[in-house]
């Protein structure tokens, strides 16, 4: 009986063996207060599923602020997890956005993610609809 049961069970194949995994990055985008929604729109158009927004304060030097023409130092930071394949497009969009006007200046950087726990969380973050 036991042998029959084992035969019935499908052989377990880890997700990373059966699918090609895409690398992910944590993108942090810091923009002047009130402009986070615009950036989020860009992100969701590119197929990003998760973005976390928080408020902070800028501490740039006086000279830097004069160059950029900023007086308000309140900032919004967006922490988002994106897959590596859309990073070039996102960088282009951000470069364009930051060069629109001196009031839309910002800074963005990314840090590599080394691990994710849970297949469903991974699927959600990389937005793999076809799987």
């Amino acid at each position, binding site marked *: 009986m036991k042998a029959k049961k084992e035969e019935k069970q499908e052989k377990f194949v880890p997700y990373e063996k059966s699918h090609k995994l895409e690398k992910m*990055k944590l*993108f*942090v985008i*810091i923009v002047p207060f009130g402009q986070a929604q615009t950036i989020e729109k860009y992100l969701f158009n590119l197929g990003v599923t998760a973005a976390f927004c*928080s*408020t*902070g*304060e*800028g*501490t*740039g*030097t006086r000279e*830097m602020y004069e160059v*950029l023409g900023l007086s308000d130092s309140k*900032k919004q*930071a967006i922490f988002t997890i994106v897959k590596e394949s859309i*990073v070039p497009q996102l*960088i282009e969009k*951000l*470069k364009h956005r*930051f060069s629109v006007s001196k009031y839309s*200046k*910002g*800074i*963005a*950087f*990314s*840090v*590599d993610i080394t691990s994710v726990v849970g297949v469903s969380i991974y699927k959600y973050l990389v937005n793999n609809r076809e799987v």
Partner: protein
Amino acid sequence: MDNEKELIVCIINNGFSDLVMDAARKEGAKGGTIFHARGTGNLEMEKFFGISISPEKEMILIVVAKEERDHVVNAIYKEAGLDTKGQGIIFTLPVSDFVGPQPIPRH
């Protein structure tokens, strides 16, 4: 790559961000972003080491060039390290992409 950057994350007690930013700026950092946060220190650890961890914290993110990183981190540690009242925890992460103001070359 000669324009590699590093992210410095600095978690300090509330009110010490000016100290950190002044120290960082002296070593060539252009700016940083402050977030207000709340610490969740381990009570047992606090008793064991005989220190108190005030829950109000500030988190500072600074992006600097790779060559400047060590100097900036050292300066911050001297001003607001764990042995001082700032009780700062400082660590750095490698940054893979960067978009933003490019550094003005020094003459």
